[in-house]
């Protein structure tokens, strides 16, 4: 089944590439690594990915980010609902 574009984080030729498509994905911050300028984030489908946060700091667990090509390009008010940040170790 073709995944919906806004949930498909993978760049797979048969599904279309969201990065090539200039799409941004809404993510919720789970954990922040201030030293490296990276955040572990999760999308609405529970897919996790590491995101560059240099353009948006300060970022805290629970924040909503709009990310494109592995980089947060905007903060958003409403983060996708997923796992509670505290549950991540």
């Amino acid at each position, binding site marked *: 089944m073709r995944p919906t574009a806004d949930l498909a984080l993978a760049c797979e030729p048969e599904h279309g590439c969201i990065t090539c498509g200039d799409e941004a994905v809404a993510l919720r911050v789970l954990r922040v690594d201030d030293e490296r300028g990276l955040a572990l984030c999760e999308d609405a489908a529970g897919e996790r990915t590491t995101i560059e946060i240099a353009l948006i700091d300060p970022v805290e667990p629970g924040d909503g980010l709009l990310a494109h090509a592995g980089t947060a390009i905007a903060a958003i008010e*409403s983060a996708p609902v997923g796992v509670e940040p505290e549950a991540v170790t």
Partner: protein
Amino acid sequence: MRYVDEFRNPELGRVLAGEIVNLVEPGRHYKLMEVCGGHTHSIYKFGIDDLLPENVELVHGPGCPVCVIPMGRVDDGIAMAHQPNVIFTCFGDMMRIPGSDGSLLDAKANGADIRMVYSPLDALRIAKQNPDRDVVFFAIGFETTAPSTALTLKRARVEGVTNFFCMCNHVTIVPPLRALLDSPDLRLDGFIGPGHVSTVVGARPFEFIPADYEKPIVVAGFEPLDVLQAVHMILGQLAEDRCEVENQYTRVVPYEGNLRALEVLSEVFELRPHFEWRGLGFISQSGLRISEAYADFDAERRYEVPGVRVADPKACQCGEVLKGVIKPFECKVFGTACTPERPIGTCMVSSEGACAAYYNYGRFAREREVV
């Protein structure tokens, strides 16, 4: 799902569609261009064009990053990928864009070490894992994607990675819009502005459209109600004889853009005097290259590439599609010789390409087919 459901409310959609009907002048034809491929995709995915009056026509712009890559640049990338000791990395759709002698996917099948990545950070990770190999990242995209490449090059410098190189094909959105507005082929009444590009550049760079060309532009989000509201706002401006830059996507787009991103872009990149666009030809100051300060990471300085201009296949009419002059189904090879499985032109490759959007959502003719 929060943040999405409220922008897909069918009741509100019907109300907006009704208000749009009240705004249009009978007998007047409205031609609005959605600049971004993401909007094209939303329009056909959600059937937004079916909600609009017949005299409101949506035409598709050049804002699909892989669609505007000319064949010569694909050939240059393939030449680099065939260099000994190179791991060549690129985004997913880019692998299927045809060059003059096959795509990057074909080159991979022929033995080149070509790997698909989701972000430039993934390419940098591959470089760190393979210190004895050169890792080249084929960077494409508008201002939405360019900051990610720029930050990755800065990170590579900080981390002392010396085997990571970037073949820069980033482009900017304003010059092609100006070229379209100067084109005698196309008479447009207004623009749906690109939402995600604008998160980086803001809405301010589009002020030339009302100032110099007296056309309205509304920067819009990608959910169906976003697009409908943008159409409503453009038609509202036209009805009131106004033309200005309006921002429908205020929940994400600041008028001034992301200043930190713009700063990083100006540090890592500089404008090329000219860059070739598929269908639009050479456009002045429309492409980015790696700046002198980051020259060590520039793949084009490290490797010789053919650098040859290659004409599109004669049968392919991507150029006219990208300029909004013809609809995808008016192309001679649409859906027959050119399909998403076996694309001839770029517009059929990316899911945001106008041809792929038409094909995937069953728009094979002007009238919608009823099954």
